[in-house]
Structures are given as C-alpha cells and as structure tokens.
C-alpha cells in the first residue's frame, strides 16, 4: 500500500506529467515567474490561468532528514528513508525523498559514496508507488542504483 496524493483540477497536471516521467512547475503566462506547489493565479502579478513548464529536474538538497521511526504504517517497511526539500535549478523547492543515498546503519555513519548532505547535487527520478501514481524522487547526480529493490526508475 502507499500514501498517494489526492488530485484536483489544479494539481492534476503535475501528477499527470510525473506519470509520463516529466517534472513540471507552474509558470505565469504573463510575468513568467515560476513557483511550486500550484496556485490558482500568479502570486506575483495575479494573472489568472497559470501555465505549466517542464524543468530540468536538476537541483540541490536544501535540507533533509533520515527518518528512523515510522509515523504511519504505510512507511513502516521503508525505514530508514530520507526526506528532503530539494531546490530546483529553476528556483522552486519541493518536498521529496532521496533514493540511492547511503544513510548508514547508525546515525551519521555513511554506508556508501552517496552520503547525503545539504547542497548535494541531485536529479529527479520517477517511481510508480501505486497503480497509476508516480512520484518524483531525487538521487545524487553521481548516484548509483537503488539497492532496495523498489519500483524501477523510469529513464
């Protein structure tokens, strides 16, 4: 089982794109500002009906935490997992999880070359977590294959 996003007319384009292996953010058709998560209007110039634009999927870890205690049964089998906020090269930040990084068997003890840190360059990778639901995750740019046997990354 998984925890999956509820979708609305406002947010569906984001998740639809993720299912197709594309990362998109909203962009104002008038002033060209970008932001995330989605809003009904541009928060800068208040133009209605924002568009969507693809982003590079490249970014850096803004902050992270290695979660070692599950607060929901859906994640009990995934402990430890690495929550992160990633800042995209285009500016917006998003909440995500990191894959393919060493988190160590004990706190602070790396178990591989992908030790996570603030500022770590990362890129998007997509994983289907439930039927028809794909989430964007991030992995180190000089990353390695995930060893947990999870859902395969889309190229």
């Amino acid at each position, binding site marked *: *089982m*998984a*925890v*999956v*996003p*509820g*979708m*609305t007319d*406002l*947010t569906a384009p984001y998740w639809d794109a993720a299912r197709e292996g594309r990362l998109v953010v909203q962009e104002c058709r008038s002033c060209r500002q970008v*932001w*995330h*998560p989605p809003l009904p209007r541009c*928060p800068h110039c208040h133009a209605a009906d924002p568009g969507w634009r693809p982003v590079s999927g490249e970014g850096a870890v*803004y*902050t*992270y*935490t*290695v*979660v*070692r*205690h*599950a*607060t*929901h*049964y*859906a*994640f*009990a089998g*995934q402990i430890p*997992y690495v*929550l*992160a*906020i990633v800042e995209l090269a285009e500016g*917006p*930040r*998003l*909440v*995500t*999880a990191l894959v393919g990084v060493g988190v160590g068997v004990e*706190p*602070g003890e790396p178990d591989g070359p992908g030790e996570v*840190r*603030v*500022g770590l360059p990362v890129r998007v990778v997509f994983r289907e*977590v*439930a039927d028809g*639901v794909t*989430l964007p995750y991030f992995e180190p740019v000089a990353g390695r294959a995930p060893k947990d046997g999870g859902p395969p990354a889309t190229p």
Partner: protein
Amino acid sequence: MPSRTAAIVGIGQTAYAKALPATAWELAMEAVLAACADAGVDVAEVDGMCRFTAPFEPVSEAMLVRGLGIPELSFFAQAPHGGEALGAVVMQAAAAVSADLASTVVVYRALSQSRGGRFGRADGRGPGGAGGADPGADVVVPEQDNLSFAWPYGLMSPGQLFALWARRYAAVHGLRDEDLTRALGTIAITQRQYANRNPNAMMRDRKLDWDDYRGARMISEPLRLFDLCLENDGACAFVVTTADRARALREDPVWVLSATQTVSPYREPMGIYTGGELLELFPSAAAERLFEQAGVSRADVDVAEFYDATSYMPLRSLESYGFVPDGQAWRYVTEQGTGPDSPLPVNTHGGHLSEAYLHGMNGILEAVRQLRGTAANQVPDADVALVGAPAGSATILAR
C-alpha cells in the same frame, strides 16, 4: 488591542498522563471548572469561549455550554493550526473583553491522545485521518494545504518537519553534528530537570542525563527520542476578563500586555515550507509587533515558555523572538543554558518535552504561576513572561 485591558484571573488543569480514564469532554469540563474556581467566578457567568481547532479537538464550545449548563455565550471563536492557535486564543479572548463582546471568556484545550490521534504512532490515526479501516489499502491524501505534496513521501509529523528545519539551521550556521547535539541536549536535559521539581509533570520521577540523551534512538535525524514532545491526555483552561473585573476578583491578576497571531506565504503551520528561508520561524514583524504593543523590551522578559514540539523550537525561538542574534542560539544555549540561573529561564514547567503536551496551554498556565509567584521552579521576582508558539503566535503577560 491596548495593553492591560484584559487579564487572566483563573487557571485550571487536570492531571496529565499517558492515558486517563476520562474522555476529552470530561477533561475539558474539569479544567474549565477548576479555572473558574481559581478565578472566583461562577461557571454560569462565563459568556465567552475560545478554543483550538484541528488537530485533535473533539470538544466544541457547544458541548461545554451544554455540559456545564452555561446559559449563553455572546462570544466564541476558534483558532486553527494546532499550536499556532496559542497566541490567537489569547488575542481573541482579550480582544473580546476589551471590545465588550463578553466579560468572562474561558480559553481551553483538552487532549485524549490515548483514545484518538497521535503523531508518533504508526497506526494511521494521525491528524487528518490518514489511514482507514483497511491497513492494506492505499491512503489518498486530501488536497488541502498542500499536504498531498508532502505526505506521499512520508513527511507526516511535526517531528519530521522540525528535523528538516534543524538540519538546515546546522548547515547554514556551520554547526557540526556535535554542536547541534550539545545545544538540543542541553534544552532537553534542562527541561527534564525543571520537570523533576514540578509535581504536575509527567516526567517528574524520570531523570535524564547525557548518557540517556545521547544513547536514545534517532527518530528523525538529527532529532533523538528526547528531542520530541510527549503525547498524552489532559486539559488546561484559563479565564480572561476585563481590567475592572480582574481587579475586583483578585489582587494578582496577570495582565495581557500583547498577543499576536500571524500567517504568511509558505509559513502555514504543518505546511510544507517550500518558499523563503526555512530558518524563519515567522516574519520578524510579528515579534516586533508583540513587543511594541506590550511596551516592554527583551531585557524586561524574566521567563519564557516556548512552544516545544521538539527541542529545536525553543532553540530557534530564542533567536526569532529576538533574545539572541540569528545563528547564535546554539552557542548561547550550550554556554549559558536555559536553566534557573541562566539569563532567561525557558520552559520552567518542563515544557512539552517533560511536563505534558497541551498545545502550549500549559506554558500559559506556567507563565501565570510564575507571575503570581507560585511556580514550582519560581524565577525570583518574575514580572514579565513571554509565551510563544513557533510561527509568531505569542503573548506577553505581566503582573
């Protein structure tokens, strides 16, 4: 809201425990009756109520009016965002009596986490009701406050959220893991020591030393078990009234000098904080407003009760409320501490970490005791107290 036009004249609480036989409804009634008795007012005189909304709020003002036989409320209000309601309920109650909308306003909070939702337990009964009858089924996160962009990754608790903040703080200010551990551990251990002398505290008889602290399991790095608050049953209430009535009721009313609430983009409490600088607990304008309205300076504050879902929050609150320059609180806490002999004693009841978790309401009760001179860990000659939640929802009280 003008300073000293409203006062807290009564405080009441129940026992705090991991599980109590009473329901949240009964706990709320017990605390409200105790607060009214402490104030010397008949509960039938209560004509206003302020309360918290979700998460964890099953006791409506209608239930209390019915349960306690209160004839009528002329004013009632609710504040959202969990602990962020803390300053808001004080502000609403004080504003109501200042504006003559009501004369005797009860503010209350009751939790029965043994029966209901908890953040720290993986049974899916957490806030928002994620999780259904069938633990095998997918959980669909309602698209509300952007939670559908966070929960699917497993970001579902304040502990995890504040772990992200603490990690960013350490990175921005160049702390080593050990620096952060020393600062957070000093707060957790100091609060436990306060609790050890507080007969109301759940952790009254449980010692905590550095070996215990460091040896505890990581919950969400860099936060260990003792960096996170308790989860429990209990209730708190207090009575706010007008200046004239307060003077008539008792010799030692506790005056509301100021109270604030705030919300700004990407700072929705329990939101996902993807904009701005994550280190900002709240817009600095909120803190300035709090002190300006109160007409006091930082140096006038004798004791602070900071909201502490995690030990990181008091640390950062020292900076965000302007007591210590940005980026210096970790060093300040490590060197000066937050204990009885420190420049600013913090969470003198033990806080959420070691007294009980009541969404900051127990911090208000502790501030009132400090200003009355009746606290278990009394700060000598305490005249001014600040009670503050993380996002700028706060109050300054004085005797």
